[in-house]
């Protein structure tokens, strides 16, 4: 019997067809994986199935009956349960409390905690998911927290479980335990859907695998009939390649170097596990990788938002491990971010005011504490012309600009700061073709001028088109180093997905 069927499902967002006519079915008791790169449409599809989004077109069938899932409550009533990537646990409450909230066993108005604990223990035993029912959720390791989330979902009678990138936050040992759990659930007749981009794991646990690419279903394969390589090839197709002219430049001294860098993420786990690389003046070093493999943490360390746990970082030969952002900038670091709204610009500030942030303490924009807004205005006007920022009014707020123009403003600001090392983190995210071309042109100009450029991007075509050297980042490490002429998108894609890497050699 088909536990779930997706029929011609489409989802349209403004300017983006996230899901394009997707159809497949999942048998009861199956472990069904959905894989795809960032932006392939996996999350959107899951959200549709779970009632968070309504589809623009198509139908859903549960247990071979057509259903309308308009809310999470509807999904839960249909016996679906989702284990999110970000846990919804309350650290201060116990495991039991976290699991039973909303469906508490009670004696009148009183919460029957004793019975709740018993019920949780029974459930936990029945599905062989060991948890300490009275432990505080905040004290638990991530793998156990996930188990609590699974128990939460099972308690509400879920027969179809949806896992959203469940292994993203787990250690290898915890992943093994999770898979044991999934197999157990399978023997109980539960159906499991899970989204992932970790092909190795998908190959281990799934029965069948659907590959999404750019919103379309590329194909469904049986695990037995396929390999990691084939999956990767299906995931990574030919993208629209912009003509990026080759620019040669003289390679100069080392501007940035790091050695055995270890950086922790917000949760306290190491996200960068010993990276070493350098960037010379006049070259573009591209770091390719799928989102979530430590790039954000690496950037945070490089711009001074966090300090590495160990390892060294040098800018122009000077030790830069424990310094402030201001010191890094003084030493010549510039940073183009993809997070325009939070990190890139102060949205309520005008174009004028944003244009000089970072050099506002220097002449001619200020003398002592007195700021010279006339000079600021002049500077902004000049940049607006140079970078063709539209509309051309320097008194407009940054927030009123389109994404492309905002990015141009960021570029204008960062490139006019005295610098010799430029970090470009996904510089063309959300930009149209015209704006993207502009960014590429500027980056190449920088390279010609002898600046050292570190390009961090999720777009392979971008990496291949701009970089002189390419480093592939996977799970916090550099797993490959090559040059554009020695590799292909497919080969890079495989590396980015962790395919073909000898795990033993890594640890």
């Amino acid at each position, binding site marked *: 019997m088909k536990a779930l069927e997706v029929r011609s499902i489409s989802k349209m967002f403004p300017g983006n067809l996230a899901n394009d006519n997707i159809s497949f079915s999942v048998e009861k008791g199956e472990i069904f994986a959905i894989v795809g790169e960032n932006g392939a449409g996996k999350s959107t599809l899951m959200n549709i199935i779970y009632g968070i989004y309504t589809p623009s077109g198509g139908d859903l069938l549960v247990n071979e009956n057509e259903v309308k899932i308009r809310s999470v409550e509807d999904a839960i009533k249909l016996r679906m349960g989702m284990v999110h990537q970000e846990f919804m646990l*309350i650290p201060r409450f116990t495991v039991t409390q976290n699991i039973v*909230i909303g469906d508490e066993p009670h004696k009148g108005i*009183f919460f029957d905690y004793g019975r709740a604990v018993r019920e949780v223990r029974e459930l936990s035993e029945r599905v062989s998911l060991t948890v300490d029912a009275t432990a505080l959720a905040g004290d638990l390791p991530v793998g156990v927290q996930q188990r609590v989330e699974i128990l939460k979902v099972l308690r509400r009678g879920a027969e179809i479980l949806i896992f959203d990138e469940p292994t993203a936050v787990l250690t290898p040992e915890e992943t093994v335990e999770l898979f044991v759990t999934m197999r157990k659930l399978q023997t109980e007749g539960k159906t499991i859907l899970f989204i992932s981009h970790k092909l190795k794991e998908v190959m281990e646990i799934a029965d069948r695998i659907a590959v999404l690419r750019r919103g379309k279903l590329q194909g469904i394969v049986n695990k037995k009939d396929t390999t990691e390589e084939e999956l990767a090839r299906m995931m990574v197709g030919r993208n629209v390649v912009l003509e990026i002219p080759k620019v040669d430049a003289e390679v100069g001294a080392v501007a940035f170097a790091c050695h055995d860098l270890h950086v922790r993420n917000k949760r306290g786990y190491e996200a960068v596990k010993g990276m070493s690389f350098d960037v010379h003046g006049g070259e573009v070093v591209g770091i390719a990788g799928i989102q979530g493999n430590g790039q954000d943490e690496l950037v945070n360390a490089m711009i001074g938002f966090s300090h590495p746990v160990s390892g060294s970082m040098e800018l122009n030969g000077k030790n830069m491990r424990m310094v402030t952002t201001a010191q890094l900038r003084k030493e010549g670091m510039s940073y183009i971010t993809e997070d325009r709204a939070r990190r890139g610009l102060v949205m309520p500030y005008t174009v004028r005011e944003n244009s000089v942030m970072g050099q506002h303490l220097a002449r001619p924009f200020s003398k002592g504490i007195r700021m010279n807004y006339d000079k600021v205005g002049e500077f902004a006007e000049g940049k607006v012309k140079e970078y063709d920022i539209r509309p051309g009014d320097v008194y407009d707020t940054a927030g009123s600009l389109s994404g492309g123009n905002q990015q141009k403003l960021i570029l204008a600001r960062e490139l006019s700061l005295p610098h010799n090392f430029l970090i470009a983190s996904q510089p063309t995210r959300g930009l149209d073709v015209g704006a993207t071309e502009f960014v590429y042109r500027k980056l190449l100009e920088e390279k010609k001028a002898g600046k050292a450029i570190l390009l961090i991007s999720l777009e392979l075509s971008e990496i291949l088109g701009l970089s002189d050297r390419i480093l592939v980042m996977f799970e916090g490490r550099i797993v490959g180093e090559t040059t554009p002429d020695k590799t292909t998108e497919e080969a890079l894609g495989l590396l980015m997905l962790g395919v073909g890497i000898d795990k033993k050699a890594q640890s």
Partner: protein
Amino acid sequence: MNILQINLTIAQMLDYTMPILFAALCGVLSESAGVVNIGLDGIMRFGAFFGLLGAFFSHSPWIGLLFGIAIGCLVGALHAFITIRWNGDQTVSGTAINVIAVGLMTYLLEYVFSTTGYSPQLQNYFGAQAYRVHLPFLARIPLLGAFSNLSFMIWFGFICTVLMHVLLYHTVLGLRIRTCGENPKAATTLGINVFRIRWFAVIVGAALAGIGGATLSISSFSGFSDSMPNGVGFIGLAAMIFGKWTPFGALGAALLFGTGQIVQSIIAVTGIAPKLAPGLTLILPYVLTLAVLAGFVGKSIAPAADGLPYYKEQR
């Protein structure tokens, strides 16, 4: 000092403590659900006046108490309306309540009683001998003797503390209230209506603050003084923080601060170190609270989502 004096002093201390306690309990409930209410000082002022109003015209302090509860609910509903329905800034709303309370109660005092400064005295109030809770068998015992002749409101304060503890930690509703204060997003995914729960917590909390205000005018004193509540609401806020947002913690803190309030008079009575910086005991609540918040005295744990506005998600 003999036993009688000690007992009397303790009784007096309890008199000071109860308004602080009610204010603190208001804060505990409200912030457990995630809504900050610094207007509780203003609500106490409302409660003090309306409590007196009810008691005066009905010649019964019980009606006064009812009035205090009612006005607390009303003002609480206003705060809830502004902060929950319209996501107005919680601090600004609380400030508005405080400012309005100052002007409005003076206005009403003049309007109703044609006086300024003090309302007419009550004959029938909880502090009057006729209305006290008499337990004569305790009278001779040191310490316990303080409980032999207390105002009903003091007992009510203890009862409310216990009830709130039971509510928050032993009922289903209490668990859900605390969930809203910790992670309203999670609460919503679990099917809990965060808005409705917060409305409840704010209104009931405000009712407690109203009771606390009424305690001032119909229990500790026999009328409304235009200076009420004299900042007691803020001491209550401090007690809530020092008590780590728990009912019994609030009780302990309130007792401590209440003691501080009468240390002045103890010093006067016993003549110990008369000039020893009298302000010190008065500032004790605030200094201790800062110490707790700054981490010098153990970890201070507010509900995680305290004070943050909540928008219903639409992805």
